């Protein structure tokens, strides 16, 4: 399966990873580091393993590519037993990213990225093309960066190269061990955004280990909250964990401001937005005025010919006026993309001098977000979580 992930066109999509009764016990230790873990990581999803240090999350991840050999249990990658192939061969088909990229300082960026393709005996031309393609993918200009050495790059850039190296041979599965732990918060945020963008294109199966719950919420399609011995305390989608933590351990891990974090996992476009009153720029002021009066709304959103919101027109502005509505009112300074999360929407609201912020999709107006919208969205999320079947609760306890 992994072997046909060649050629730049047909990128290998993710495959399912299944862990069955996976146990790792080190000799001389009473407790298993990883104790009977069973979980399924769906194809093409990012699953974040979170938990306190020493809970065995990294060990669990290393069991998948057999950097650590399990004491017992099974690992299936794309339905194939991971133990069937020699470990070195297996790992060439499983991308691996560690903190700071784990780049080899004595090799150029191109050499670092080409390591796995070379091990897979790709020819030179194809390898070189792939290196450039990968560098472009992670936003580094190949001509500029190919021949540099890792120490000439910033931490964030090194991390990107680390991701490029892991993806070079187009593995269906990517393991990431706290990859963004060592960079500053701003760079970290950017790298996270970029990983999400990459994932939209690539659909790999990504196992992401982190101790930062917020990072897990941001990146994970699912989150597995682990306690000691890698016990799965809760394994569910971020919104569900936030809205309905399985127990106090998870609650403690979410920390303060669970509701705020819930804002993070919801896209504005996915909640019920206020429609508002809209008007075309060419509409007559008097008509818009009467429509506002009828709808009992104080403001109208004036759209240009591309349906982009451009102006606010208040009922007072239009009182007794005629002519195109675009001649009255005040320009709209703040809009927000429907792809942004509710938290960003809330920030936009707090930062703007209006009670509403227009929401756009590809610059086109799709509705208004207000404090009310945010509040009712949160309530709705909570309701949904309560109605959901309690299937996600793991057997482990804190």
């Amino acid at each position, binding site marked *: 399966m992994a072997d046909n992930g060649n050629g730049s066109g047909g990128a290998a999509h993710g495959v399912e990873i299944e862990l069955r009764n996976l146990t790792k016990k080190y000799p001389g230790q009473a407790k298993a580091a990883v104790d009977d873990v069973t979980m399924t990581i769906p194809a093409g999803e990012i699953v974040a393993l979170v938990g306190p240090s020493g809970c065995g999350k990294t060990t669990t991840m290393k069991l998948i590519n057999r950097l650590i050999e399990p004491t017992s249990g099974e690992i299936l990658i794309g339905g194939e037993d991971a133990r069937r192939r020699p470990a070195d061969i297996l*790992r060439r088909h499983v991308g691996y990213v*560690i903190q700071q990229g*784990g780049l080899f300082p004595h090799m*150029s960026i191109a050499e670092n990225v080409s*390591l796995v393709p070379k091990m897979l005996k790709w020819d030179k031309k194809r390898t070189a093309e792939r290196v450039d393609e990968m560098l472009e993918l992670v936003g580094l200009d190949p001509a500029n960066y190919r021949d540099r050495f890792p120490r000439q790059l910033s931490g964030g850039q090194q991390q990107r190269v680390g991701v490029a190296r892991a993806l070079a041979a187009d593995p269906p599965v990517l393991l990431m061990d706290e990859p963004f732990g060592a960079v500053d918060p701003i760079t970290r945020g950017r790298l996270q955004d970029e990983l999400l963008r990459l994932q939209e294109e690539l659909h790999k199966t990504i196992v992401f280990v982190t101790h930062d719950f917020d990072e897990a919420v941001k990146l994970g399609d699912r989150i597995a909250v682990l306690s000691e011995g890698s016990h799965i305390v809760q394994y569910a989608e971020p919104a569900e964990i936030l809205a309905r933590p399985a127990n106090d351990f998870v609650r403690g891990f979410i920390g303060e401001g669970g509701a705020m974090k819930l804002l993070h996992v919801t896209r504005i476009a996915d909640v019920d937005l206020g429609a508002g009153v809209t008007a075309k720029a060419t509409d007559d002021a008097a008509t818009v005025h009467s429509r506002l009066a009828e709808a009992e709304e104080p403001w109208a959103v004036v759209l240009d010919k591309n349906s982009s919101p451009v102006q606010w027109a208040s009922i007072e502005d239009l009182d007794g006026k005629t002519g195109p509505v675009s001649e009255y009112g005040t320009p709209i300074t703040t809009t927000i993309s429907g792809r942004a999360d509710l938290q960003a929407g809330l920030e936009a609201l707090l930062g703007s001098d209006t009670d509403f912020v227009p929401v756009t999709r590809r610059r086109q107006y799709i509705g208004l977000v207000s404090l009310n919208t945010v509040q009712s969205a949160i309530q709705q999320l909570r309701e949904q979580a309560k109605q959901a079947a309690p299937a996600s609760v793991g057997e482990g306890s804190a």
Partner: protein
Amino acid sequence: MTVAPDTEVAAQPSAAVKAKPRRTWYLIGTPLLIVCALVADWLYVRSTHPDANARTTLQTSYMLSKLLEHLELTVVAGVFVLLIAIPLGILLSRKGMRLATPVVLALANIGQGAPAIGIIVLLAVLWKTGFEVAVVALIIYAVLPSLRNTMVGLQQIDPSLKEAGRGIGMSAAAVLFKVELPLAVPVILAGVRTTLVLLIGVAALSSLIGAGGLGEMISTGVQLQRYNVLVTGSVLVACLALFVDWLAGLAERYLRPKGIKA
């Protein structure tokens, strides 16, 4: 120096890893010093009006043959030291060999800790005189710096790099040859350099057991009380040591993998 392998190993990394940042004038400085020393010695010898006895020893052809003998001793012993120290250092830095490390380092420490002259004479008494014995004595004496730096050089590598190598599917051997050894090169070379300089110095003692070398000029000078011969022999040994140190320094400079900070 006593047998204290632990403190030795602990103390070494900082000294070894730093490996002295060198400036460009180093390139010219050492050769210039060597030329000055040789010229000064020549002027001194001329001013002493050497007699016939001294002149036989101070002939260019004689000095050259002794210099070659000295180099031969050094090179042969040096090659053996590298053949022993580097593989042994690699072996001792592998997992599972940790227990053997203190023992081997203790032995190597004894080798260097014992007086060089003692080793040479003892070996000659126990075995025989001549070239082979001198080489063995030199190896025993000079193996430690190369061995220790090989080990330190490999041990100081960030473990996460080794794991990254294994994690992307490199075999243990590939990680050793493509990651660990290249990264350890600067430290290993610093050890080799120390070894070579030690060898030049100690090879001067091998004339005591009839193995030749520039040491002969020194002992002849002492025996015949010809100080010009004695001084010339010493100056030649010192200059040779400086020259080899300089060459090894160049090697360190140019063999250091690109991408690693000097």
